[in-house]
């Protein structure tokens, strides 16, 4: 169907060209008639003059293009011709944005026709160029109606080329770009629909064009493109075959010549996500989830390779779940992706879509806060805390229920919901109907008009608020029930000043709201719409005639996962250390190293004898996060490691054999002995270092220029920080971040970035040896690759803090090349 429609459209395009030509001919013809008696010469002159003028104007415009941009375009074109993915990616992700910032932040890029000579009129590259051109117009400038129509035409041209060429095209594009093509296509469709539905603001010309617009940006044409891409690439068949574990040959057989090419496969894949988005815009939440039937929502799915796509997918899926009243599923969806965004934060600060991702994340926190208020869960305290921090005021109102709650729900919903659109245009083809609409809008004044304009969003909001309103008394009821194990309905009704029958009915609502359909574990590989009824509340009750019986389930605190995770992490650090290429100790070091060796040292080195090859962990100190929660039953494993690390800290050098041979602990060590790490030892350590050989303590070059300083105590201010870090080199930039909104507005965020002028920054200053803030640790790491570089010394004396502990001063070697 899409092909057909596209074909019709191309026919129209031809037609338009014909029209243009005939107009040109007509005017020429008229000239001929009019100037019949004259010589032919001047006519030719006139037309050539016009052509010349046009040509010169173009020439002038072409001259205007900066040379770097010209060479960028030429280079870009070359990369596309060669299908050189790496070069295309660079040009696309950094080059384009760089020159946009530099030359075109407020104006359009040069028209495609203008740069055509640079690329030998390569039609494919010009289509791709226009794709970027219009995207720039949409994102930075105000698109006019011509832009809107032409960007549609260009998208069709692109998809037509991809879908209707003879066989699959030999083009390769980075995945990021492919996603952006689909994403932008839907975005422009959504923007167009929103713009189109506002009848009253249109000029006469625009009304004319819209009346004749036909299929431009129609819902059917957009769906056709997406479905055609899916079908051409056989992406659903591909996903199923992969899940069934078919061999590559079998899969190749199944997906056919198109599906084998990554370009088509990824376009098909992204089209599924695109469909999800389109359906959500149109308010069809079931269908949105239904098209996602075959897509696995997990961190291994192909869509995770493009972060923007990953985030968008979860956002729309989560929103669908909200509208299906499946709040636990929505919460799980948001938590997964918000955790992901948090972990990836350091990486996508570099991405040109960083802002977009952050905005979506912020919306998801709002949606999460709404779900959390409707169906409290303890899935992830961390995310819940951030959501409460950002939307504390609204969250408090929503969780309390009562009359204030609705306003808070409305505020967050309007902020966080996707842009809803109306599938069909106002009747532009019927001028009288349009006039009637304009007239009625003029009568009803701007207030009614505004309401009409936000119509689709308003409709969905109303439905959602109706659901919420039904649940408003639930929190109050719950808080009463929590106080009792059994209670007469009459008494409860008296408490609440309500009618007994009303109350009993309200109790049924409470019961209803504590049940939800949710995907259960082990349902991987089934549709996102699947699920079973689960209990979402820990408060359970039942009514026996007029007596309410209440039972509360308590969930014991979970420790195991946490300790296992951290034990594994500690083991990994240990393994990494062992595998590091160790420096060869100085000649004398192997025998006389550490002349003032502490006694722990001598005690623990029986293994270093004979011809055994000595591997020395030479001054390679490292840190370990050992969280502790007082009273937790099983601190043994971390304790053992703690002790080993502490031993290392107190020796100037020790071998790995020491670690391996250290005696196992038979009695648990009182954690407090570790926590109050004696301050007095530190200067001592420092001197023993120095005595060891000052030559070894030379400045360690720090191979990055931007450092992340984290976990700052709230009392640390910019000035203090600058003082500290100026000791190691000239600080060129200090980004000290503050909360911009929420309850903590104006307070420091607790982290900062420092940049040095000189890359060889010495971090060996004894300053770092001194405990800086008691009970607080300051981290320093490379902001680009997330490697720990150095950490300040600190002492742990604070029991209320449930993370961070230990160990010594030092650093971990850092090398950017690992990160390629």
């Amino acid at each position, binding site marked *: 169907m899409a092909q057909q429609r596209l074909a019709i459209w191309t026919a129209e395009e031809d037609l338009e060209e014909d029209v243009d030509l005939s107009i040109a001919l007509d005017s020429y013809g008229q000239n001929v008639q009019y100037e019949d008696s004259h010589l032919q010469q001047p006519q030719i002159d006139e037309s050539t003059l016009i052509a010349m003028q046009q040509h010169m104007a173009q020439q002038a415009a072409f001259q205007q293009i900066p040379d770097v941009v010209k060479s960028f375009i030429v280079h870009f074109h070359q990369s596309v011709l060669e299908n050189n993915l790496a070069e295309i990616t660079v040009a696309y992700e950094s080059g384009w944005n760089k020159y946009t910032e530099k030359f075109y932040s407020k104006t359009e890029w040069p028209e495609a026709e203008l740069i055509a000579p640079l690329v030998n009129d390569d039609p494919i590259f010009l289509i791709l160029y226009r794709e970027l051109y219009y995207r720039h117009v949409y994102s930075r400038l105000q698109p006019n109606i011509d832009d809107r129509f032409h960007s549609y035409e260009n998208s069709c041209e692109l998809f037509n080329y991809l879908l209707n060429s003879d066989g699959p095209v030999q083009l390769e594009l980075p995945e990021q770009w492919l996603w952006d093509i689909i994403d932008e296509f839907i975005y422009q469709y959504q923007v167009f629909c929103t713009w189109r539905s506002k009848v009253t603001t249109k000029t006469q010309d625009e009304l004319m064009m819209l009346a004749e617009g036909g299929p431009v940006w129609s819902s059917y044409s957009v769906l056709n493109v997406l479905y055609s891409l899916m079908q051409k690439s056989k992406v659903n068949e591909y996903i199923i075959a992969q899940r069934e574990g078919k061999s590559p040959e079998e899969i190749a057989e199944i997906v056919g010549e198109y599906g084998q090419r990554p370009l088509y496969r990824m376009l098909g894949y992204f089209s599924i996500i695109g469909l999800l988005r389109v359906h959500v815009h149109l308010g069809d939440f079931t269908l949105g989830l239904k098209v996602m039937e075959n897509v696995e929502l997990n961190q291994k799915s192909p869509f995770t390779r493009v972060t923007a796509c990953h985030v968008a997918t979860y956002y729309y899926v989560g929103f669908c779940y909200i509208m299906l009243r499946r709040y636990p599923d929505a919460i799980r969806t948001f938590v997964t992706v918000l955790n992901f965004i948090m972990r990836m934060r350091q990486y996508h600060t570099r991405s040109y879509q960083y802002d977009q991702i952050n905005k979506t994340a912020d919306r998801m926190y709002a949606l999460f806060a709404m779900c959390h208020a409707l169906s409290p869960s303890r899935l992830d305290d961390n995310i819940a805390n951030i959501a409460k921090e950002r939307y504390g005021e609204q969250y408090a109102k929503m969780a309390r229920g009562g009359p204030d709650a609705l306003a808070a729900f409305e505020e967050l919903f309007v902020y966080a919901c996707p842009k809803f659109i109306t599938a069909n245009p106002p009747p532009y083809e019927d001028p009288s109907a349009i006039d009637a609409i304009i007239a009625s809008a003029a009568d009803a004044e701007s207030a009614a008009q505004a309401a009409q304009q936000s119509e689709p969003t308003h409709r969905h909001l109303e439905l959602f608020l109706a659901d919420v309103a039904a649940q408003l008394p639930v929190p109050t009821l719950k808080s009463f029930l929590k106080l009792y194990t059994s209670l007469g309905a009459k008494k409860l009704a008296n408490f609440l000043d309500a009618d007994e*029958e009303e109350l009993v009915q309200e109790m049924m609502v409470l019961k209803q709201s504590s049940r939800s359909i949710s995907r259960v574990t082990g349902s991987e590989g089934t549709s996102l719409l699947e699920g079973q009824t689960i209990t979402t509340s820990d408060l359970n009750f039942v009514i026996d005639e007029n007596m309410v019986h209440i039972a509360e389930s308590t969930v014991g605190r979970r420790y195991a996962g946490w300790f296992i995770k951290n034990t594994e992490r500690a083991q990994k650090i240990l393994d990494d250390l062992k595998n590091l290429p160790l420096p060869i100790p100085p000649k004398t070091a192997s025998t006389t190293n550490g002349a003032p060796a502490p006694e722990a040292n001598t005690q623990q080195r029986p293994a270093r004898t004979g011809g055994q090859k000595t591997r020395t962990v030479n001054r390679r100190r490292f840190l370990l996060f050992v969280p502790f929660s007082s009273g937790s039953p099983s601190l043994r494993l971390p304790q053992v490691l703690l002790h080993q690390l502490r031993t290392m800290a107190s020796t100037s050098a020790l071998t790995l054999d020491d670690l391996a041979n250290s005696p196992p602990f038979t009695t648990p060590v009182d954690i407090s002995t570790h926590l109050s790490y004696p301050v007095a030892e530190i200067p001592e350590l420092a001197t023993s270092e120095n005595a060891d050989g000052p030559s070894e303590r030379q400045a360690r070059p720090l191979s990055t220029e931007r450092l992340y300083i984290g976990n700052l105590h709230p009392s640390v201010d910019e000035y203090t920080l600058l003082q500290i870090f100026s000791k190691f080199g000239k600080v060129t930039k200090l980004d000290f971040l503050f909360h911009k909104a929420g309850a903590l507005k104006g307070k420091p965020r607790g982290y900062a970035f420092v940049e040095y002028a000189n890359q060889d920054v010495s971090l060996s200053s004894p300053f770092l040896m001194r405990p800086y803030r008691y009970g607080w640790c300051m981290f320093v790491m490379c902001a680009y690759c997330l490697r720990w570089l150095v950490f300040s010394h600190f002492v742990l004396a604070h029991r209320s803090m449930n993370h961070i502990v230990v160990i010594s001063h030092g650093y971990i070697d850092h090398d950017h090349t690992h990160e390629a």
Partner: protein
Amino acid sequence: MASEWLSPPTRSELIENLVSGVDRYNPSNVGILEDYLYHQIRSEEYDCLANLAILKLYQFNPDLYNPDVVINILIKALTASPLPDFNLCVSLLDDRTTASQLDEPDPLPTILPILKGLHSLLFRCRFPSFWEVYQSAELELLRDNYTVEVAGFEDAVRAVAIRAVRATFTRISSERLGSYLNLSGPALTAYVQKLGWSIDASTSVVSVPPNPDNQIEATVVQESVKLPQLTKVIAHSMTKV
């Protein structure tokens, strides 16, 4: 539960293909789906996704729009409470600027608020009020023109009430149950017996059989560590350094 909602056992293969395939967008299939809707109405079946497919076609093709079909779909969705079906259907009803192609005035704008009100009452478990409103004189239009055609509509509403009662009560007075079901006397007794619930003859209290939702138990969920969780840690200690 959800899988039955996704594809009811009564759905034929033809409809399944329409609902799951691209053909759902083809306007010429609207007749098949509408016939299926009327089949649901006559034989007390319900298929939400197929009905949503009709609304989708109406959304994209305003000229197909048939208000009677829409109202019937909404009435069917009404009795799916507390599932969100009713809202999902309403979500797909785009604002209509003109109804010029219709011969008669569009009944939907008057009926939709009524249905929304009824839905709200059902969703908020206000069953006695529901019956009161439903049987009021203002709703005669709805009763005479629409719900009378929907086979078993009142029983479907009762089923909604029964779902709520079953989850919330262990015993309930027959008077209260009667007000929820709009039944009394022998009719109520017969209904309760059909459900397999028992009525105490002397006190006329109905006992609701135990089910997962009306049995409560205070539990403490303790963590239990499974061996597979520890495999990595244990395996690591086995590797020779």
